[in-house]
């Protein structure tokens, strides 16, 4: 029962090595949670197809009708192209915002307790969950890309653009899934969460540039949209995904906002996640 624990045998001088090891452990623990998600998707790929229905409906019903309305999309971008980036962000948002449900589910089952009694830092678990949402959203993105190509949307297939889109989607999913996790930590039951999840997705989606430009909005809504991280995610996606896409705010600001919001939410969630086991 040595008090000094398992690190007692290590030489004291190798501080750098132990810092490196701690970082390595942290990365492994984060990765472990996300890897489990990949394995689950691998076991049940049909789940992805069922989730693909909604973006299909948006693009083919809403998109085709709205494309006939002149002057919605700015400049020379066809509306369907404009919409495609918004729907890509939306499908990732919908996956992420209901992520808290699975956290509550895991809590009720006992899987959460198993995570929480492990020596993994809470923030590593939260980041792992966020990455899991990113993985799921990426698989959605592939479906939206395929569909958009079929519908003749001008998509830039340069590898760097695709990489940029992937990063934006993972960041956006991490952000909204962590927000979702924070809400789950507060409400603690699936029933309450369902109500709040619905209430949240509407304003996040409609008070953004996902399906129409901010220039069409009344002034007050434009202000709301400017503090909505989804606006920056869509802006980055539009610039990177479309052959003639441009960014309104600049990619630096877009990625800056998404990263900063993710870090802040992760720090908050890490403090709350442990209390879910109460």
């Amino acid at each position, binding site marked *: *029962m040595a008090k000094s*624990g398992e690190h007692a045998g290590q030489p004291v001088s190798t501080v750098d090595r132990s810092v490196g090891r701690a970082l390595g452990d942290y990365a492994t623990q984060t990765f472990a949670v996300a890897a489990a998600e990949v*394995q*689950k998707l691998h076991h049940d790929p049909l789940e992805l197809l069922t989730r693909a229905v909604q973006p299909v409906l948006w693009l083919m019903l809403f998109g085709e009708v709205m494309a006939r309305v002149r002057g919605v999309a700015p400049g020379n971008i066809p509306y369907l192209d404009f919409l495609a980036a918004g729907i890509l962000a939306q499908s990732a948002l919908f996956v992420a915002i209901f992520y808290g449900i699975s956290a509550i589910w895991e809590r009720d089952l*006992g*899987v959460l*307790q198993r995570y929480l*009694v492990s020596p993994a830092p809470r923030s590593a678990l939260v980041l792992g969950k966020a990455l899991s949402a990113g993985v799921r959203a990426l698989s959605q993105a592939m479906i939206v890309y395929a569909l958009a190509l079929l519908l003749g949307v001008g998509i830039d297939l340069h590898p760097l653009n695709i990489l940029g889109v992937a990063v934006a989607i993972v960041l956006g999913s991490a952000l909204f899934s962590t927000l979702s996790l924070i809400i789950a930590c507060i409400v603690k039951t699936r029933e309450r969460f369902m109500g709040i999840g619905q209430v949240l997705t509407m304003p996040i989606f409609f008070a953004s540039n996902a399906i129409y430009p901010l220039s069409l909005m009344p002034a007050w809504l434009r202000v709301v949209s400017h503090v909505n991280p989804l606006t920056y995610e869509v802006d980055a996606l539009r610039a990177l995904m479309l052959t003639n896409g441009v960014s309104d705010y600049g990619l630096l600001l877009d990625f800056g906002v998404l990263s900063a919001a993710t870090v802040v939410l992760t720090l908050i969630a890490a403090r709350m996640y442990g209390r879910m086991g109460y």
Partner: protein
Amino acid sequence: MQTASSPPIHDIAVQASRLTRKFGDLTAVDQVTLTINQGEIFGLIGPNGAGKSTLIRMLTTLLPPTSGSATVAGYDIVSQPAEVRRHIAYVPQLLSADSALTGYENMLLSARLYGVPRRERAERITRALARMGLSDVAHHPAGHYSGGMIRRLEIAHSLLHRPTVLFLDEPTVGLDPGARETVWEHVLDLRDRFHRTMIVTSHHMDEIDEFCDRIALIDRGRIAAVGTASELKARVGPDATLDDVFIRLVAATSETESEGGYGEVRRARRAAREHS
């Protein structure tokens, strides 16, 4: 291990001192002072809602105490929770294995979370699954396992990082007699082979009587009695069983269910249903 006569101080696995947890007005655990020795199989018994699970959740650092203190494996549960977690394993009353993953994938997740070195992972996982008799189903989804197999998978997790103290919250709830027997065989084997400490809750007095070195009876958050099975039985009468001890020493007033009762019954029932 039959007699637990004042062990040397370094042989103490769990030391709780006036440990208390309140939920609003309800005092779920009330000033519990308890010493559990290294290598002991220690049984926690008591009615539903008596505070057994709350006590375990505090000792496993899932729940901070309202007051009092405790050390587990030599580490303080409040000031050194990460060290405590590194040295314990907890098999909760609920199912902790992820049913969407295979047994092997479940083990891999644990191995990574517990920092088992990459080179040793595959070997330790394979060995732990073999020891629990799960080699044949290692690559089947845990959702297809029987209740007894899931429990064994959960115990297999605790072989990966070699914890010194294991907490098993109703490991045999909802299992048929054969599966219960197998779970206990593995628990005893772990203790005998590796000198692990086991803290076990159960409502089956027969298995507590048969397998536990010492027992604490918890009633309304307090320890009503501690001792070996024979000591407890002797307190009640010459031919008493552990059932008699339970019924006699648990105050008649606990007929009026404590507030924790409903939730615990609901959870236990669900766990039982999912195990079967």
